[in-house]
């Protein structure tokens, strides 16, 4: 097992090295060299990840019947006697699984970008940032303690910021990057405070200790409460807040649609497949803690997830920017995973740990098909130079490969067998079905909506009314279609992986079986969604407009994303900037500084008064002299 720890270290070192190389020397390189360095680096990382994951799952990971956690770290910063920040790697089922996901998608994006970003100014910078992101994301999933996770959590935030703002001369991109960073930063504050509380009461950052169900933490009885809730509830809730920020849960989702200002491959990598699932990963990481110490927080997570998925699915039906549709779809799907975690139980017997496993499974499959969708959308945008649906239509003839792969991804996300989305989504629905019928109903509805809006998107791009294009759209080169095809292949096959054998909440393998009572209706609702979309959008008709107008206020609200942006703008611009900051600045300049200036003012005034006594005006002296003499004389006399 030792060599794999080393390999895992190399997985981290290679991308940071390539980041430094490209960052420091990038401006001296040609585009081609830079792209090659980045891609080769990632290629090696991917290989190493596959080797690590393969060996973890098939040789050294399994001790007896369970998958054990293997970690190695060194002390980076000593804080107190109990607390110290360590840096290292941790191999367990979910981190190995994430390694595969991240390195695969990242590699695909690297290759794809060779074509997509061809000739862009700042190509080297782009690859440098991609490497930085890969490094941070890999470091995040490999983190053996929560503080390292926080460190890399911040780093992915920054790389996301840098990549969203890649087109830095575009004001909308700058604003979007700023928004993304600040919103997630706000959520990270919750994360940090959560860590502080957690570590204060458990005296450790280490995941091994935090999630060891037989350890002392789980048997200690800390009953400290704060404002009516136990401190652990606060801690886990705040940590979830961090996760909600990165994973764009309601109400911290507002940054993700705007983040689509970044280059499309970046959206595929960061804002669809990897970084946004960090929140899910975080909850999964601490799942035993959540489950045993604060089960009610899990319920909260489930409901927030359900609300988010429904909300995002409704909004996705009304958006016209294809990347935004995908963004809301991402929010919705990640919320799905959160629901799955929320309804899950710990253990592997029967349906107990199904939710956890389903969540991870959906994370796995979603990463591939959503990346595929984004890259496909990127190919479309590359061909027609627009993000807007109304500028597209009838593209199936011009972009055959993109069309087919996109269709596969759409079917997958709609939950049509035998594509991967069907399997993972089905498990989630089953888990919800066993736990809470309200959640199940909600998710069931979302499944139908998902099928509808994805096919609305699909038909609007590839069918419908054919636009007049300035120059004929044509399929891009192999470096762009190759990743599409590869990911389509993964989308088709990954559903058949017996995921429950590998990734479960307690490391023991579990068996799953089709629950037909859930599976058949879920397929049916998917098909229904597709059929409605087909009727409305396959041929250019006016049905969709009629439906939209008949929905009235709901449609308007949904197309404005339920006014969340406006609300946030109001809060930040008016309240934070105007009310708090503005008044503090005023207060500082006028009251605090005014007080200091007033000191100066009165001492100045007083001194000039005193100086006035020594005025040199003889008559004044005489007056004072005479008056004093008379006063003194009068005092003597009377």
């Amino acid at each position, binding site marked *: 097992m030792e060599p794999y720890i080393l390999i895992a270290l190399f997985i981290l070192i290679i991308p940071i090295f390539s980041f430094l190389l490209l960052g420091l020397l990038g401006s001296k390189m040609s585009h081609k060299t830079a792209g090659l360095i980045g891609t080769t680096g990632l290629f090696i990382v991917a290989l190493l990840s596959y080797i690590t994951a393969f060996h973890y799952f098939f040789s050294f990971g399994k001790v007896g019947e369970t998958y054990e956690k293997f970690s190695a770290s060194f002390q980076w910063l000593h804080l107190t006697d109990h607390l110290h920040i360590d840096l290292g790697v941790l191999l367990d089922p979910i981190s190995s699984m994430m390694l595969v996901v991240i390195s695969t998608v990242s590699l695909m994006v690297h290759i794809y970008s060779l074509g997509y970003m061809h000739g862009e100014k700042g190509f080297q910078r782009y690859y440098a940032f991609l490497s930085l992101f890969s490094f941070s994301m890999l470091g995040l999933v490999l983190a053996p303690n929560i503080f390292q996770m926080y460190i890399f959590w911040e780093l992915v935030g920054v790389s996301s910021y840098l990549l969203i703002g890649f087109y830095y001369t575009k004001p909308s991109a700058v604003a979007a990057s700023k928004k993304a960073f600040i919103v997630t930063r706000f959520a990270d504050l919750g994360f940090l405070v959560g860590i502080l509380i957690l570590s204060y009461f458990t005296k450790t950052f280490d995941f091994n200790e935090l999630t060891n169900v037989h350890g002392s933490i789980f048997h200690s009885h800390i009953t400290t409460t704060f404002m009516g809730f136990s401190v652990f509830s606060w801690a886990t809730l705040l940590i979830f807040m961090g996760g909600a920020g990165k994973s764009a849960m309601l109400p911290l989702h507002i940054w993700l649609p705007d983040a689509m200002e970044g280059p499309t491959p970046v959206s595929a990598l960061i804002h669809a497949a990897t970084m946004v699932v960090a929140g899910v990963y975080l909850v999964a990481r601490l799942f035993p803690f959540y489950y045993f110490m604060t089960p009610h927080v899990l319920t909260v997570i489930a409901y927030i997830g359900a609300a988010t998925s429904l909300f995002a699915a409704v909004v996705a039906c009304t958006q016209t920017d294809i990347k935004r549709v995908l963004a809301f779809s991402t929010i919705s799907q990640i919320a799905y995973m959160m629901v799955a975690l929320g309804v899950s139980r710990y253990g592997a017997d029967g349906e107990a740990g199904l939710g956890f496993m389903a969540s991870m499974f959906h994370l796995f499959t979603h990463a591939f098909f959503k990346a595929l969708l984004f890259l496909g959308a990127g190919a479309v945008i590359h061909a027609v130079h627009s993000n807007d649906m109304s500028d597209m239509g009838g593209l199936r003839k011009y972009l055959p490969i993109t069309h087919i792969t996109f269709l596969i991804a759409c079917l997958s996300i709609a939950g049509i067998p035998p594509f991967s989305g069907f399997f993972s989504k089905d498990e989630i629905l089953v888990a919800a079905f066993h736990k809470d019928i309200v959640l199940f109903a909600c998710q069931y509805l979302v499944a139908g909506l998902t099928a509808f809006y994805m096919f609305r998107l699909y038909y609007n791009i590839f069918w419908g009314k054919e636009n007049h294009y300035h120059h004929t759209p044509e399929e891009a080169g192999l470096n762009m279609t190759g990743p599409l095809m590869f990911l389509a292949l993964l989308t088709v096959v990954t559903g058949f992986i017996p995921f429950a054998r590998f990734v479960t909440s307690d490391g023991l393998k579990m068996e799953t079986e089709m629950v037909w009572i859930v599976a058949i209706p879920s397929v049916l609702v998917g098909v229904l969604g597709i059929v409605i979309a087909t009727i409305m959008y396959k041929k250019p008709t006016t049905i969709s407009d009629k439906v939209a107008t008949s929905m009235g206020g709901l449609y308007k609200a949904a197309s404005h994303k339920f006014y969340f942006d406006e609300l946030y703008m109001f809060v930040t611009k008016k309240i934070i900037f105007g009310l708090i900051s503005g008044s503090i600045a005023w207060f500082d300049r006028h009251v605090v500084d005014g007080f200091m200036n007033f000191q100066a003012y009165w001492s100045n005034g007083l001194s000039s008064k005193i*100086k006035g006594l020594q*005025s*040199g*005006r*003889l*008559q004044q002296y*005489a007056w004072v002299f*005479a008056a004093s003499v008379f006063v003194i004389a009068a005092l003597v006399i009377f």
Partner: protein
Amino acid sequence: MSIPMEFYLVVSTIMFFTGVYGFITRHNMLAILMSLELILNAVNVNFVVFNRFLFPGQMEGMFFSIFSIGVAAAETAVAIAIIINVFRNMKKIDTSEVKNMKY
């Protein structure tokens, strides 16, 4: 001597305080100097009056007045010389305007 001493003293007091008033209120340097003369004059009167009424056999009060007049003359001469010099340099003899030598 049919006039009581107090009568003289009352007159000299009024003269003295008129001088004081002038000294304080006047702006013109020469006018200030004149007020000063009033004050000095009042004092001289007092010397003489006290001499005459209280110590008639002696002459200190009178001599003091004489010397005082002499000193007043000297003082006035110098003061006027200075005032003229100031006027020559600054073209004004108003105390509120001649500020260059203050502070």
